[in-house]
């Protein structure tokens, strides 16, 4: 054995592989032998039966991967299928999943609770009394489908396509249903995003042309987070584990959060500012970087659209970078640490300290904000804009340890069919007053309906619960119970919820292990896809059975959505005359329905680079590989795409505008990744934007109109918001100057890390951990109000009040109170979740509503013996009912923070009491509407909305034209 010769052989083989662009060493396995069953034993894994202890009884399992559906992280799960009974016995992490890497939060394993929930909906139900009366009859799927399809067909044929609407909470999939609606030719997609993340999205979008960040936490030197997001919200598990890795390496974690969140407890520096002042702090840090010259000059010079800014805002001034730097120094000069300290209530020296840490990060600054500050405040969309300003100053953009745009760390494979953009514009979701809203004005729907702006013939709520989740739930009930406004309400849901109570059909849809979906999310600098699948289908197919329909393996008649939408689309267009059916037909067997295997098989065969080769190396088809492992990493280390030279083949008849935006006649090369991005417009002669000229080179740039990072947004300036075109600080609606002396700020947007919104209701393990939402109040405020922990307090909002228990804690800033939105589930009658829904009485007197809690939860007999062990009675209070709508006039985001009065509950006021006057809610809607600058008055080009901005289910370009500028939409007397 000649070791020298072997060394040489290995080195040469490695060099040859690397020359081909391949990775030679697979790297340390992500599979820890001590923690995960080896994948080659997934078909026959033996464990001792814990329930048989102390006897040693062996159980044999088949391990089938799927994807968690309990938040949007899409973490990998491994279902343990008992080979004797073919039942799922537990869920653990999937070590083959590149995002979650075998780890899960509490919500993943609790999928077992959901699929075995004794209160879940197992069969299609149709209401038999009046809407909301609580009377239901079981119907067949065919009956439901015939009725729904007939109504949709009628609406489309009669030119009432805008009366069809699909309202989704967490999509949990990459565009399947959007494409269904596009196939129908309907602009009926409605998301929850404007009560969630559109404020944050807007801030990022104006900078990057992409609406989400992808921080490379694991490699950062400094991590700066606004709000509790990472330990309690989106991407909790995949991001949190990487944040902790960075901390172990010595990275500093700074958290700005008014409340001591779980994330804040891990911080090196927890900063608790007055709500809404976050942007002031960020700009003070930016000012410090600028003033002291600690920013990356070259990066700013090359990649900011400073020339466009000077040309638009300083015409006649020299278009030189030196001049811009001079201007830049003045722009933020007023944002001193003294100013930020006065606004935020945080000591000046603390701000200086964190500014120094941020400055020390250089290009290894990972930043993130999603909800809280962005979602709580008027002008909250400027918080991410100011946060990303720090990245843009330090050049920490798409660097190792920096912050990427999401689309570069995400992969949405091109499907078999891409239906055209619908030729319609739905003003119920995209009203003209909000031309720049990042997402649908979903939470205004009851007001817009009552205002006479339209009606709905068929309204789907899908895994979404607007009555409970949205602000102003009583206005939702008023709209949903008015059959003139909503002709048919179909609730697609695995479990009962407050909105489903007001449906006409309740159709049971599958949980994480009962449905197919495909997804990809930005969680590190890489691209991956993960495959959700009905576990028992995959298990039985491994045993040689053929499963044609997920209802064959799911409990009761629970269906999966993919199959449901295909079936419904055939029902709408049975003979193909409407041109819909063709998008749901098999290519292998023309004229027959598209099957799930064919649908996903096509994607995996044709649209996922390297997957076919990887599968073939294991003797599997690509679909077989995904069914076997559940996830596939397409690429690691994407790097700074913006700095890549545009290939010569894409440059034909090139033109550049005066700021260096480069256009080409060459068609875009086919791309299997259809991840949504901004779509800057072509030049006047129809050339497409392809890159940007930087120091003489044509580089790819960003998907913004200028091709650069847009420090200055001409879009905002041209659409009426010139004063907000730069990253700036907007005083919140809960700014201290706007509060009456006896008012406090209520923070309501934080989560309980183990709960899941609507779908967690009967997850018994989670419910036992977290089941109530007391009002956080600082000891100094409690003293003033003579409150102790456990006392009842009445919290008064603009439109009503709720009564909740106090929790006196130093974990909240004085003058601010906080109550988690995750709790307070309720039901009126017997139907519902008995582990987490209080039984309430609803009283309505015209538009005055009162809710009284009649009974908490308690033990009850069911097929699950654990339901007899329920020891908790309190399930919290539904505060969102008492919040009016607060749409931000730019982003459209509902601004959740509330100015409230808090006092000790009076005699006769009981826990859980809620009272609301929806007339006052309507007045609040009109007050905020008056803040808008609508397209009718401000559109610079006669369109409803800048075409380049991202939009779910983007309509055809013609639909962007304003129909009649002489008759702008007006708000009536609701």
């Amino acid at each position, binding site marked *: *054995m000649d*070791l020298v010769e*072997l*060394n040489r*052989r*290995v*080195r040469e*083989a*490695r060099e040859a*592989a690397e020359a081909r662009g391949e*990775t*030679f*060493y*697979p*790297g*340390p*396995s992500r*599979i*820890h*032998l*001590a923690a995960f069953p*080896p*994948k*080659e*034993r997934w078909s026959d894994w033996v464990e001792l039966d814990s329930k048989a202890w102390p006897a*040693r009884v062996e159980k044999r399992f088949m391990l089938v991967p799927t994807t968690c559906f309990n938040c949007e992280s899409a973490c990998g799960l491994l279902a343990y299928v008992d080979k004797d009974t073919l039942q799922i016995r537990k869920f653990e992490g999937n070590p083959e999943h590149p995002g979650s890497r075998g780890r899960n939060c509490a919500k993943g394993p609790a999928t077992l609770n959901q699929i075995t929930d004794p209160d879940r909906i197992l069969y299609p139900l149709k209401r038999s009394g009046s809407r909301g009366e609580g009377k239901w009859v079981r119907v067949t799927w065919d009956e439901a489908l015939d009725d729904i399809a007939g109504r949709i067909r009628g609406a489309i044929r009669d030119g009432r396509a805008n009366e069809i609407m699909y309202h989704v909470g967490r999509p949990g999939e990459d565009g399947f249903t959007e494409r269904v609606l596009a196939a129908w030719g309907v602009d009926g997609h409605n998301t929850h995003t404007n009560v969630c993340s559109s404020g944050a999205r807007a801030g990022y979008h104006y900078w990057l042309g992409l609406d989400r960040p992808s921080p490379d936490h694991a490699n950062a030197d400094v991590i700066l987070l606004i709000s509790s997001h990472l330990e309690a919200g989106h991407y909790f598990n995949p991001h949190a584990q990487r944040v902790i*890795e960075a901390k*172990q*390496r010595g990275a500093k974690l700074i958290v700005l959060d008014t409340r001591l969140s779980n994330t804040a407890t891990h911080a090196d520096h927890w900063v608790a500012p007055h709500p809404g002042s976050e942007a002031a702090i960020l700009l003070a840090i930016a000012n410090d970087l600028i003033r002291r010259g600690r920013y990356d000059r070259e990066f700013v010079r090359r990649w900011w659209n400073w020339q466009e800014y000077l040309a638009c805002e300083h015409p006649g001034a020299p278009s030189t970078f030196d001049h811009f730097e001079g201007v830049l120094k003045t722009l933020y000069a007023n944002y001193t640490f003294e100013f930020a300290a006065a606004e935020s209530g945080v000591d000046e020296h603390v701000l200086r300290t964190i500014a120094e840490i941020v400055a020390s990060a250089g290009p290894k600054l990972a930043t993130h904000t999603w909800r809280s500050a962005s979602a709580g405040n008027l002008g909250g969309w400027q918080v991410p804009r100011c946060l990303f300003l720090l990245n843009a100053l330090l050049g920490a953009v798409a660097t190792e340890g920096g912050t990427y745009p999401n689309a570069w760390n995400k992969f949405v494979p091109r499907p078999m069919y891409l239906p055209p953009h619908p030729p319609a514009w739905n003003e119920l979701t995209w009203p003209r007053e909000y031309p720049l809203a990042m997402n649908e004005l979903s939470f205004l729907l009851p007001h817009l309906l009552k205002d006479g702006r339209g009606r709905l013939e068929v309204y789907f709520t899908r895994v979404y619960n607007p009555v409970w989740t949205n602000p102003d739930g009583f206005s939702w009930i008023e709209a949903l119970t008015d059959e003139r406004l909503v002709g048919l309400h179909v609730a697609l849901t695995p479990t009962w919820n407050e909105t489903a109570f007001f449906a006409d059909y309740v159709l049971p849809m599958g949980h994480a292990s009962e449905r197919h979906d495909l997804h990809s999310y930005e969680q590190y600098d890489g691209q991956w896809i993960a495959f959700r699948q009905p576990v028992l289908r995959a298990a039985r197919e491994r045993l040689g059975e053929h499963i044609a329909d997920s209802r064959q393996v799911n409990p009761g008649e629970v269906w999966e959505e993919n199959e449901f939408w295909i079936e419904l689309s055939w029902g709408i267009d049975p003979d193909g005359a409407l041109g819909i059916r063709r998008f749901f037909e098999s290519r292998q067997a023309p004229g027959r329905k598209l099957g799930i295997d064919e649908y996903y098989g096509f994607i995996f065969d044709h649209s996922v680079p390297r997957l076919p080769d*990887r599968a073939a*190396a*294991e003797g599997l088809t690509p679909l077989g590989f995904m069914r076997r492992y559940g996830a596939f990493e397409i690429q690691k280390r994407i790097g700074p795409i913006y700095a890549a030279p545009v290939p010569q083949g894409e440059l034909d008849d090139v033109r550049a505008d005066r700021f260096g935006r480069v256009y080409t006649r060459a068609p875009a090369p086919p791309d299997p990744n259809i991840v949504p991005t901004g779509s800057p417009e072509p030049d006047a002669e129809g050339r497409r934007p392809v890159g940007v000229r930087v120091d003489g080179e044509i580089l790819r740039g960003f998907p913004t109109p200028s091709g650069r990072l847009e420090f200055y947004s001409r879009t905002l300036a041209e659409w009426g918001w010139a004063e907000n075109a730069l990253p700036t600080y907007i005083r919140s609606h809960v700014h201290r100057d706007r509060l009456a002396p006896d008012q406090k700020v209520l923070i309501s947007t934080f989560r309980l890390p183990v709960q899941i919104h609507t779908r967690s209701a009967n997850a018994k393990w989670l419910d036992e951990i977290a089941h109530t939402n007391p009002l956080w109040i600082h000891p100094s405020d409690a003293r003033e109000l003579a409150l102790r922990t456990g006392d009842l307090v009445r919290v008064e909002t603009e439109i009503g009040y709720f009564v909740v228990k106090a929790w006196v804690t130093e974990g909240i800033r004085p003058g601010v109170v906080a109550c988690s939105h995750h709790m307070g589930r309720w039901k009126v009658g017997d139907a519902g979740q008995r582990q987490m829904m209080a039984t309430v009485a609803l009283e309505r007197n015209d538009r005055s509503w009162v809710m009284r809690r009649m009974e908490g939860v308690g033990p009850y007999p069911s097929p699950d013996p654990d339901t007899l062990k329920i020891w908790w009675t309190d399930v919290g209070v539904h505060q969102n009912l008492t919040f009016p709508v607060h749409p931000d006039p730019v982003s459209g985001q509902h601004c959740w923070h509330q100015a409230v009065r808090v006092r000790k509950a009076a005699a006769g006021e009981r826990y859980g009491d809620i009272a609301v006057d929806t007339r006052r809610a309507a007045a609040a809607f009109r007050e905020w509407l008056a803040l808008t600058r609508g397209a009718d008055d401000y559109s610079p080009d006669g369109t409803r909305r800048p075409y380049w901005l991202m939009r779910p289910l983007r309509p055809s370009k013609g639909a962007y034209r304003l129909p009649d500028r002489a008759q702008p939409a007006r708000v009536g007397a609701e």
Partner: protein
Amino acid sequence: VELFRALAVLAESPGPGQVRIAATLGLPGTPDPPQHTELFALQLYPYASVYVGAEGMLGGEARDRVAGFWRALRRVPPHEPDHLTVLLALYAALAEHERDDRDPARRLLWGQSRKALLWEHLASWLFAYLHKLSAIAPPFYRAWGGLLAGALAAEIGAVGPAVTLPLHLRRAPPLPDPRTAGAGAFLRGLLAPVRSGIVLTRADLARAARDTGLGMRVGERRFILESLFGQDAGSTLAWLESEARAWVPAHLACERTAGDVARFWAERAEATAGLLAELRREPASPSQQYGSAGTDASAITL
């Protein structure tokens, strides 16, 4: 360096990358997933802490010592800092730093780090490990083990002998005597290689059952051992004694390369054989209980 990295990768669950590397090295056949699982997940766990830890299990102080080594190098300890793969990969990285660093002082430090890693966390257990592997592994992994042993010896030749016995070995307590420490501690000690000087895999215990004609009860190793003692303590002691005696020359076979480390292991095996012989010669019946004050409640009957 390249060889160490390649050998490290082959201790991982086989995939296409491993197949390619195996072919490059000219190993017989290809890495087979079931064989890999059988060897590394069920028989010979490739973690230093199992072999040099006083508990004979994953983790504990031994793993902390390895993690401390990573930290001393200003590196974040990986999730499993004592896994053979990451240790070999770390060795390759240190050797590369030593080769590439232009600063002579730093190069010297890299060299010292490399030597420390080699002696403290690799050579301290790998020769015993690879000896057992050569006995039970299928041909592909046996060849891999042979290559690794050769590479290890070559590196030792390159860096020179250790100045002191590795800390893991210096801190390793001896095998407890069941007459004073109790049978539970004795059984745990037998299964802790650094205390007993022997490596007992599941396959070895199955062989023990065959050799002694006793019934093999499936379970984890201590459970198997207990059941063998429960059936016939005398035969089991005798079998273990002969096993320990066989380990003495096995350890000494690499004395020229591993020096004090080999002698340490041989002495431990010899002491174990001696204790077992003494216990076997005790006049007590097979049902005698070796428990005493201070033993755990699960002291069993030998």
